[in-house]
């Protein structure tokens, strides 16, 4: 470790490339925790937003007009307003109105922390897109396939769970992939409410160390790598789900 640190110190002295996040233990710790926060935010929001998508798409097929209207309203509203304003609306707007609770030390603290609000608003934002994505996948499943399931005695829920969802998922994986990548990138907006994710800690580091250009390159590389990993996982999943004789062409 010392050898590596020394090498990067030398690099700084000879070339001016100041990678404090490698040779300085404090900066390294800060940066890694920021990276961890980004990964945590992304994973939690991906899972919640997929759940929102699955439940929302199911509710969109509801026989009740009110339910359909509410889901459509949610989707349309969250797709057509800036995610940053959504975060502010939740964190500043709702966060101020909601009652405060007492924590373990008897202090009055907000009901949700900034991290939790970031998770709520980012999940809802990505979830609204996921509802649309799953809906379009469900629409691509031929009506006759669901009719066959109906003739075998499946209930509406059984059809959704055993036939529509597995098929729709395979059809809409490419769009889902895009949206999840987008979600990963959107987690940077949590910066605005002081969630210590990668961008936030990077700004702290470049303010302290005056190495803006270096940290910029690092940031871009980090996100490119994270997106690359996510895309890789999604492609592996896509392959694992692939069915012989049922391709993109056959899905239509």
């Amino acid at each position: 470790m010392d050898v590596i640190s020394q090498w990067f110190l030398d690099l700084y002295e000879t070339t001016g490339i100041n990678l404090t996040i490698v040779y300085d233990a404090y900066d390294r710790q800060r940066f890694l925790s920021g990276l961890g926060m980004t990964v945590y935010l992304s994973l939690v929001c991906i899972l919640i937003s997929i759940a929102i998508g699955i439940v929302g798409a199911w509710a969109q097929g509801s026989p009740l007009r009110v339910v359909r209207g509410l889901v459509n309203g949610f989707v349309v509203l969250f797709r057509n307003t800036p995610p940053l304003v959504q975060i502010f609306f939740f964190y500043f707007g709702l966060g101020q109105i909601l009652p405060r609770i007492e924590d373990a030390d008897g202090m009055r603290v907000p009901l949700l922390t900034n991290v939790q609000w970031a998770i709520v608003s980012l999940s809802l934002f990505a979830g609204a897109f996921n509802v649309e994505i799953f809906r379009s996948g469900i629409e691509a499943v031929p009506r006759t396939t669901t009719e066959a399931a109906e003739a075998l005695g499946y209930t509406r829920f059984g059809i959704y769970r055993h036939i529509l969802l597995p098929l729709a998922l395979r059809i809409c994986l490419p769009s889902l992939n895009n949206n999840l990548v987008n979600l990963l990138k959107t987690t940077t907006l949590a910066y605005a409410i002081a969630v210590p994710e990668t961008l936030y800690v990077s700004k702290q580091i470049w303010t302290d160390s005056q190495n803006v250009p270096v940290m910029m390159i690092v940031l871009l590389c980090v996100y490119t790598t994270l997106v690359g990993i996510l895309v890789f996982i999604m492609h592996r999943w896509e392959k694992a789900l692939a069915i012989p004789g049922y391709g993109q062409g056959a899905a239509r």
Partner: protein
Amino acid sequence: MAVLLPHKPPAPSRWRVPRLRFVHLVGFVGLSLVVGGGAFAQANGARLSALEVIWKWSPLLLSGFGFNILMSVLAMALGTAAGILLGLAQIGENRTLRSLAWGATQFFRNAPWLVLLFFAMFMIPFQFRLFGYTVPFPDWVKAVIGFSLPVMANMSEIVRGAVASLPSGQWEAAESLAFSRRQTLWMIILPQCVKRMLPPWMNLYSLITMATVQASIVGVSEMLTLTAQVHAAEGGRPDLLAPLYGFAMLCFFVYCYPIERFTLYLERRFQLNQ
């Protein structure tokens, strides 16, 4: 640009449904604002209600929103022009150029927009010296450049995708008629692609418009910055935050929702005509 024009006027019945739903939604959002504002007005009789505050400051807030629109239009124009060039390079014959263009596209497409914005803010100097003149580069111009970077990358992919989605028979047919590659691209392939590129391009515009509020993070005073200032000017009342941010959401919604509907309409019409 004749291909952009509808071949036939859209059926009126088709438009009635979205319009109705649109009005309903605006009404819903507006109503919740009114109800919310009214509730607070009753609670604090002496102070202005949320609605009155919004009304009082709406000229300022709307001018801020206009600035967001201006930034989005400029970023879109800049990004589209650069993106078309990059996209054409991606499908060009020069191998080196092609892989360079591909790399640039992927890089800027995968970077978070906010990071690219920071990138532009910090990496572009605040002024240029050109032929002895000093050309200033105010923050908002740098922000426009920052927003145009992801537009460029996405536009490049849209161009590449549209060209790739055309059946190869079109290339073969043109080649058999002795068109050169350049002629084929400009006279046969690209005119057909315009129609395919329009929906994703409009979608991209909607996204960049909504992204312009991020400029407030790097200190450009657009609508969100003004909203925070209005809130401070009204004494920083916590109950005003939700209505004020709600108003910002409403402005963007009113602007972006019709774009989304029109995009959907174009997509459907394109699918029908296929």
